[in-house]
């Protein structure tokens, strides 16, 4: 197990350097000058511009700038935001819980609906529920997030007025961050209605973000279940006289979970990409919105550092999934 972990960590090294290089290049390829963006409408004098260029080091060759940046990164220094002057590291971790909370809730939504739907479809293969579910999943999978979000906002926020359109909680509630998770903090605060408000704010973004993973999980669960249900050991389980819910829900599902967990792990990257869009639409104060805002402001250190930290997060999640995989699949564990 330790050897496995070490070898996986080793593969992270090239990815890590790749991401620093790509994020460094990406933000500089975009047209627009960060200093001019900071100056805004007012503009600035030539001398002031030159002074700032020197201060940020933009007058030096790119390769030199990159090496200096990399040197900082290796010492754990991601630089400071041009705009807020706060360390990128601090900003990331003050906003990350919001994204994590949204992503976890989206994933829970996808799992709670996707797993049973996939199982029921597989057991009723070819029947009406199965066909309806698979067409719906296809629609969900190919639905543009932006359009889906707007549709939900129009119906549930606009027409029905059930949910707010932006933020994590109503402004009337105010309490300290304990965990950074609004659902937990609001409950801990003991303020009446705070938790409910947090849930109301969370529900639409979580559904929007969870829709694609939901479609993917439902489809993957179905196909994995179909395969597993034809296995000899399922016949053995039935031959023991076990009730169908135990045969399907324990013997089959446990095996079907192996490929499903892989898919869940793979969709974490997609989930974070979706989070960027979802957070922007719902003004959700997380990493995604922060990144988008920073790209518009040409806030180089934030974009570079943010992308790098997101990449590291994805790598950590994938590693966790690999370890988890070993726990569900005893064949891997011993190997």
């Amino acid at each position, binding site marked *: 197990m330790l050897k496995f972990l070490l070898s996986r960590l080793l593969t992270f090294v090239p990815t890590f350097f790749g991401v620093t290089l790509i994020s460094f290049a990406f933000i500089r390829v975009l047209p627009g000058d960060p200093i001019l963006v900071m100056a805004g409408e007012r503009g600035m004098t030539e001398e002031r511009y030159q002074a700032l260029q020197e201060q940020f080091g933009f007058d030096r060759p790119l390769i030199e700038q990159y090496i200096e940046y990399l040197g900082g990164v290796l010492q754990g220094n991601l630089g400071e935001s041009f705009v807020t002057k706060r360390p990128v590291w601090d900003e990331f971790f003050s906003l990350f819980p919001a994204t994590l909370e949204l992503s976890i809730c989206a994933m829970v939504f996808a799992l709670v609906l996707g797993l049973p739907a996939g199982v029921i479809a597989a057991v009723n293969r070819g029947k009406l529920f199965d066909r309806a579910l698979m067409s719906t999943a296809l629609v969900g999978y190919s639905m543009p997030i932006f359009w889906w979000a707007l549709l939900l906002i129009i119906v549930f926020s606009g027409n029905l007025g059930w949910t707010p359109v932006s933020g994590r909680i109503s402004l009337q509630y105010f309490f300290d961050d304990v965990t950074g998770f609004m659902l937990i903090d609001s409950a801990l605060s003991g303020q009446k209605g705070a938790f409910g408000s947090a849930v109301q704010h969370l529900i639409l973004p979580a559904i929007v973000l969870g829709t694609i993973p939901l479609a993917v999980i439902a489809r993957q669960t179905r196909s994995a279940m179909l395969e597993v249900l034809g*296995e*000899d*050991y399922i*016949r*053995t*389980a*039935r*031959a*023991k*006289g*076990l*009730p169908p819910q135990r045969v399907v829900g324990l*013997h089959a599902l*446990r*095996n079907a979970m192996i490929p499903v967990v892989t898919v869940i792990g793979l969709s974490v990257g997609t989930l974070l990409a979706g989070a960027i869009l979802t957070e922007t639409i719902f003004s959700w104060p997380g990493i995604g919105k922060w990144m988008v805002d920073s790209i518009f402001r040409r806030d180089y250190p934030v974009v570079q550092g943010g992308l790098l930290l997101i990449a590291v997060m994805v790598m950590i999640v994938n590693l966790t999934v690999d370890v988890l995989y070993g726990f*569900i*699949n*005893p*064949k891997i564990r*011993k190997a």
Partner: protein
Amino acid sequence: MALLEIRNLSVDFETTSGRFRAVDGFDLTMEPGGITAVVGESGSGKSVSFLALMGLLPWTATVTADRLMFDGTDLRQASRAQRRRIIGKDMSMIFQEPMSSLNPCFTVGFQIKEALRQHLGLDRKARQARAVELFEQVGIPAPEQRLKAFPHQLSGGMNQRVMIAMAIACKPKLLIADEPTTALDVTIQAQILELLTSLQGETGMALVLITHDMGVVAETAEQVSVQYAGQKVEQQEVRALFATPHHPYTAALLQALPERATSKHLPTIPGVVPGQFDRPAGCLFSPRCAYADDRCRAVPPPVLGPDLGLARCHYPLNTQAEEQA
């Protein structure tokens, strides 16, 4: 009263290319404690017949029978829940591939105790004690440790012993062993057969031994039922069958036995069991039968009397008349 009575059992599969009759009028009667071998080449419908009895066929199968009685219960009338109380308890089955027949995600101990809880409602401690006892009974050394093993950590022979332990866990009245040794090494094969017959002797359960190997039959069975292309073609007591086979197919199977071979090469029966698309008219064995004539190829043969082993043939072998001549 007979323990098991099957009359005119037929199984049709709904396939993408139409209906296919995999079992065609199968009959079998078993007394408590009897041993019957069901013999036939691969594809003869042996497995399907007994999966139908157990109620384990997929939904594409249609099962019909004039009689399907087990231990006083009419299985045709039984609800799914009633059947679940019988299978795995009074009637149990083991399969050809021990490796794939056990769930890779659970320890063998978990899988055996599951049956004990389902049917006998034993508590945790009683389940553990009974599981150890069963492992000892089927000759698994160091049972406490083996109970914690996953199937892939055990050999094929060991897994088949686990399957047997699981099948006899609730002291069944009938054990169906579907080619239990086909997937195993030759040396292990003999051990498993020996185990099955000795368990049968100890517990007094009835045993159905499904096999394509006449050699296995000679060593273990009392009654032999020969199956071909979904039909029973002959049934006799084992010694009589070996001495005087009446159906040409039985005779051909016996001729293929190594110890009966006269030349260096084993005589195999030319051709294969007909499947969905090449079912002949008349006698199903006619394309491969050395005695076939035009009548065989046109008219389905009758089932002859018990004195002729219930053979399904126009021209049975070893008849009284022949012997007198």
